[in-house]
């Protein structure tokens, strides 16, 4: 089974037509890969579907805008993968999951 990072990288490569080998765990989705907000909607849809979660993009954006978090915490891909793993774990731990 491929890692969370690999799954995200494959989704980004396919959705945004970015060569897969240029996407690394250290890549920043916005600053390095040039993904804009519209493409990120597409990516979020694919990630939500693939992992059965709902990425809280609005909450993350608000935290960044309020200075409570940096974009690196959510949009550097190794960090994004960690956030997704947390969301999946929370879903699996919730009653009825």
């Amino acid at each position, binding site marked *: 089974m491929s890692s969370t990072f690999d799954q995200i990288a494959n989704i980004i490569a396919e959705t945004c037509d970015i060569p897969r080998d240029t996407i690394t765990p250290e890549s920043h989705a916005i600053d390095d890969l040039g993904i804009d907000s519209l493409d990120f*909607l*597409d990516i979020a849809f694919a990630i*939500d*579907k693939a992992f059965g979660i*709902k990425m*809280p*993009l*609005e909450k993350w954006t608000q935290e960044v805008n309020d200075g409570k978090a940096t974009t690196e915490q959510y949009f550097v891909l190794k960090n994004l993968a960690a956030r997704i793993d947390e969301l999946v774990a929370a879903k699996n731990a919730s009653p009825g999951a």
Partner: protein
Amino acid sequence: MQLDYFILIDRILDLNIEAKTIVVEAQVPPTHTIFEGHFPGFPIMPGVLLTEAMAQSCGWLLLGVMKFERMPFLAMIKEAKMRGFVSPGQLLTIEAKIEHEGSGFAVTSAKARVGKELKCSAEITFRLIPFPDPAFRVHMDAVANKIGFPLQAMPHD
């Protein structure tokens, strides 16, 4: 349809909040200046307007599901397929459903038919944003009443 006002949906036939589906009707006008140019001697509904009619159907569905707390704005259209011509005077029945509710966005799909014949379909993504102006919300309430938006799905504030 009120093409001049870009209101393409005439009636909501069914809105199922639980199933997240909607069925609407859209009557293509028998005459309009659009048909003089599109096309001379062969008037048909432009594909962009059919796509807009599907988007408006999805939009009303999202408004119902979100209880008018946010306005859906068109963000992305995928797999828009014009499968057959739609002529002046024909009645479109459009079915739409929500495929995915994300954080601040939603993905929907729609199909438009004339009778039983499928004329077009698309997957349409919206950004969901708080109403930017109170007058806008008031306008949407008025249109909702006009097209028969189910009262039980309307907000009570």
